[in-house]
């Protein structure tokens, strides 16, 4: 019944390493580990996800091209952040974004990676955040949760709840303002990387 091969096939002996583990494919690991972080970081500068993704993609592409996929020396978190930041600032200047914004963005510090203390603080905060979300008016809360937790687009939310796109947007804004008021004591708390970056 068996259709044996003419050519001998090597069997797959190695297992593909998990994304976070160091592997010979340094580029691959770095991409898996830092792509999202870097996009988030660059987004703060440029405000457009489309542009942020392009910039980060370009960064990885150049690194790969100029260094070769096996050179891991440049694929460290600090290096990637500096490179991403330089690219973002260059992009802003190139697009002639107002200098006041560029100056502001240039003060943005590299977000530190989470320390155990941060994680602990965040856990503590989480209860307050959950409570604040639970206290939103029902429709407001439903929309906010669909957006932030389920990550649906505004259009999908409108379709799912049978409301207009305008309603979704205005409810999201309302939810955000309420949360901002409720969470005011935590917004400037030290230990959350967001707040270290001015």
């Amino acid at each position: 019944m068996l259709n044996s091969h003419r050519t001998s096939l090597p069997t797959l002996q190695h297992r593909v390493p998990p994304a976070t583990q160091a592997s010979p494919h340094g580029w691959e690991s770095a991409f898996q580990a830092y792509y999202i972080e870097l996009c988030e970081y660059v987004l703060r500068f440029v405000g457009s996800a489309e542009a942020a993704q392009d910039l980060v993609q370009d960064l990885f592409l150049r690194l790969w091209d100029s260094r070769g996929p096996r050179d891991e020396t440049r694929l460290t978190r600090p290096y990637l952040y500096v490179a991403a930041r330089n690219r973002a600032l260059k992009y802003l200047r190139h697009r002639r974004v107002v200098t006041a914004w560029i100056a502001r963005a240039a003060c943005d510090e590299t977000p530190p990676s989470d320390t155990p203390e941060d994680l602990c603080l965040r856990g503590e905060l989480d209860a307050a955040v959950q409570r604040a979300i639970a206290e939103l008016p029902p429709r407001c809360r439903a929309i906010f949760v669909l957006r932030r937790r389920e990550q649906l687009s505004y259009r999908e939310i409108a379709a799912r709840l049978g409301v207009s796109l305008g309603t979704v947007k205005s409810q999201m804004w309302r939810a955000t303002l309420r949360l901002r008021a409720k969470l005011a004591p935590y917004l400037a708390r030290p230990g959350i990387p967001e707040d270290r970056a001015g």
Partner: protein
Amino acid sequence: MREEIEESDLLRFVEGDCSPDEAAAIQAWIAADPRRGELLHELRAVWRLTGPTTRPWGVAGARIRLLHSRGRHAAQRSAGFSARPGLSRGGIAAAIACLVAGTGVWLLRPRAAPVREFATPAGQRLQLTLPDSSRVLLSVGTRLRVPRDFGLRARAVELDGEAYFVVRHDPRRPFVVRTRQGVTEDLGTSFDVRAYAQEDYVQVVVASGRVSLRAGGADSGLSLRSRDRGLIDARGVLTATSGVALGDYLAWTRGTLVFHDAPLRDVVAQLGRWYDVDIEVGAAPWAGERLTISFATSSVDEALATLAQVLDAHWTRSGRMVRLTPLHRQG
């Protein structure tokens, strides 16, 4: 571009839902008044507190785009791959922006480039069409490696995870799926291969046609037909079962997870991949239980509630971390 910018536009800016031009206009507007900068700062803080990322980033799609660009860079041409977003039923977010299939010409002689690798993170599936027009649906947390010369003489792919293949039969170029423990060779068919590195078995379920399954290194193996399930266990022993319920094994392709008499450990591991959460069970009294349960919801919370109900447990979730604890002590 817009004429008037309102405070609520900052939300789109925070989420990055702006074109580069809109973003520039909003940046100028923010820079004009320090109070706006302060508001922006607070909105970002709210976002940071209420979710792990500001928006979905689609890493798998970005990876594929990058590999494509990389391929173009290296060889100055595109190849005949296409990738489509995962089915968005069952709450599995579509990961991939549509990629154009180049000229449709499968050019040969790749430079010493790596194999193409397609990967899905937890919570996302991906549908691919290979150059021979075979179709593959990758399940959550899965990697598929496709050699550059795929289809040239042989059609061999490597799989870590679970995928459903609909293969166009070609006796001259057998379609071979290699996994850590075993090799599956199609004889014209649709079949599901499950071989997660974290699990110590390979499972193949045949929907139609015929498939041969052999342990790594072995010369011969089992021939499986429709509704057969073949298994290679940790010691490389092959077993087969006939007449299995296809619907249960293939339910994931339609966005439902079905478990029949499965160890809780497996249920929890798969739920974790499916909804992208870490579920901690601890040494609870049910740790050794076997469950028959299905999940058809896109909401992780609903799924957890179902699981908790079956286990008579209490559950809490904080971001990706989920904890199940006994509802009341059992006497």
